[in-house]
């Protein structure tokens, strides 16, 4: 295992010429811009207008397009990831906040926070394929690796809704703690993590072969000298080997490192203020955090599990996506 990891690292090191340098795109919720960061040099290379109140951000699977939930424009804005030129927008339904793109890149599943809906949008034809009624204040969106299930969390109903991508019907509902914000499957699809901001927990579900969830545990957090009320789980990412879960803990200014198998909390990494969302660089060497109240992103070295630098971005950063 170790050898394989070593080989992989050196292969990456060889391949990583300047032309292949990755980029991180950070939405600045208040600044209405996207900051582009070079993930090799960690320099800010550009900042461009992203629409009004940009929050959720993702990339097409081939990395050529950047999709942004422009919440106050009630649409998904699309940008060329090379030129930053704006491409035709996608219909999103009202107040899009977070979304998830399927591995084929064809369908985008968008949470409409103000309308109790999940909107399914075709990225080619730019049409709405379906509107799925869910609980009150839909927010987090996760997708099973086989793309058969979309999980939506509703913040006031306090549930994770499991929507089949075949017929857009809800097949399962699981009650979780207060204000569920984010849903993240493991790469092998056997587990799902749902963060609850006000509940202060991460609900862990085992996923059966047919997609049926079973709530098995709730992870809670504790940091000496930090008021427990400030430990508010928001964004979450799990490494593709399924070993580590990273959880952004909002106003406690920390990212929790969790053993994704034993579910033990191993460490807390101090990052910028009011940490919202997370994304790995494609090689999973680094984890980036958006820090809404310090206007920066923190770079975490995933192997060392420590923060290595912070980079000033725009006004009130919220979401982040990286591409190769």
């Amino acid at each position, binding site marked *: 295992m170790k050898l394989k990891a070593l080989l992989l690292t050196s292969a990456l090191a060889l391949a990583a010429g300047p032309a292949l340098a990755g980029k991180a795109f950070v939405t600045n919720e208040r600044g209405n811009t996207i900051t582009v960061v070079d993930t090799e040099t960690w320099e800010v290379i550009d900042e461009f207008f992203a629409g009004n109140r940009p929050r959720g951000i993702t990339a097409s699977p081939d990395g050529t397009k950047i999709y942004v939930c422009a919440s106050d424009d009630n649409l998904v804005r699309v940008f060329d990831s090379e030129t930053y030129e704006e491409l035709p927008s996608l219909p999103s339904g009202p107040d899009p906040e977070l979304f998830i793109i399927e591995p084929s890149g064809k369908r985008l599943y968008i949470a409409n*926070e*103000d*309308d*109790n809906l999940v909107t399914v949008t075709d990225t080619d034809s730019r049409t709405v394929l379906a509107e799925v*009624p*869910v*609980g*009150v*204040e839909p927010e987090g969106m996760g997708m099973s690796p086989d793309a058969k299930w979309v999980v939506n969390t*509703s*913040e*006031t*109903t*306090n*549930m994770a*809704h499991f929507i089949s991508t075949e017929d857009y019907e*809800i*097949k*399962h*509902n699981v*009650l979780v*703690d*207060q*204000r569920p914000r984010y849903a993240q499957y493991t790469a092998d699809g056997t587990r799902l993590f749902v963060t609850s*901001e*006000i*509940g*202060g927990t991460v609900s862990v579900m085992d996923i059966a072969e047919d997609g*049926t969830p079973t709530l098995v545990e709730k992870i809670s957090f504790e940091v000496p000298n930090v*008021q427990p*009320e400030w430990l508010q789980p928001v964004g979450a990412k799990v490494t593709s080997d399924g070993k580590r879960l990273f959880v952004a803990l909002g*106003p406690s200014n920390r990212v929790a490192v969790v053993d994704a198998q034993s579910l033990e909390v191993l460490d807390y990494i101090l990052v910028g203020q009011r940490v919202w969302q997370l994304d790995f660089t494609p090689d999973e060497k680094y984890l980036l955090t958006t820090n809404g109240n310090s206007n920066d992103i923190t770079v975490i070295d995933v192997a060392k599990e420590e923060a290595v630098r912070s980079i000033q971005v725009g006004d009130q950063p919220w979401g982040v996506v990286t591409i190769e």
Partner: protein
Amino acid sequence: MLNRFATLFAAALLCAATLIFTAGFAAAIDVRSAVLRVDYQVQRPISRFDEAPEDLGFAGAALADQDNNSTGSFMGHTYETVRKSAAPDAADAALDEILADGIRLIVIHAREEDVLRLADRAAEEGALVFNARAGDMAMRNEECRANLLHTATSYAQQADAIAQFAIWKKWPRWVLISGSNPDDIALADAYRRAATKFGANIVEERVFEDTGGARRTDSGHVLVQRQLPTFMQNLPEHDVVITADETDYFAAYLTYHLWDPRPVMGSAGLRPVQMHGGHEAYGATQLQTRFEDLAGRYIKDADYNVWIALRAVGEAVTRAETADPDGVKDYLLSDQFELAGFKGQEVTFRDWNGQMRQQVMLYDNRVTVSVSPQEGFLHQNAVQDTLGLDRPESACTAFSN
């Protein structure tokens, strides 16, 4: 909106059916509750922006029913809240009707003496009562009742919220101007207590006598502009003017009619509120739009207090699978209970007197200026307990804790 909700409901019912089969949830619970609002003969408010709407508090109940039914529809639970208003002398009969209807979960929007009397009557029938209006201290302290919880903030919570902000600003020298009616005097007491608690110094106090009279006059502001500054003359050095005017007859005029230019807080200027229609942080935009879709107006404290009381009931039903008043109360007072109140932190109940712990918004009539507790005010158990009566000072014995 209604259509959409109906669709959601239908879809949800379908899902709930599946859920009951797959997850084996307990049997359906039909939760019936009531809001009883006592309407008093009062003077008009100073500003017509503060006129009480006819559905005051009731609109909060409607939203709570809608929110509770969303989770409920997935769980097989239904919620219905009866809404009644009554003049003070008809309040007891109205409560009896509610009790005769079999309802044992009741939110009361009334003054302290009425809440206490009605809560005692409700206790005879085993009902649980939520106080959604009165801020008085006695009912949370030596006069507390075992079947009475409070979602309305106490005067002490309100005053402490203001005091923490003033101290954070390093404005410790206060002038306290209070009204002459009993509620104003009670509120002024809370500010004196807050000053002592957080190290502010009340350099002078003045009472603005309520001499009655109409709230509206054709002559308008001219006399106010001449008279109020002279009332505020010759004060010692101070940083801020704190007003205690629960009656609402003078404080709103004071903001710009001072002698020395100072910020005004308390009953005017920067006010402690539970929720206001301009508040958008912590996801509250969605609360606002849902409320406005239903009520066609902005949310008021009374609506929020009723809404969160019924949401707390819903949470107990969802998590503890009970609508029995004792079961609900036990769950709400347990450390299992927490509820998202769009204030950035969970709300819970104090198990020593039934008061809801909550953040207090500091509101200037347009925006959320700040939210208390303020940064740096710490507590060994819960920061929200830096606001209001804490366990060691509680004289309430009706709760076992």
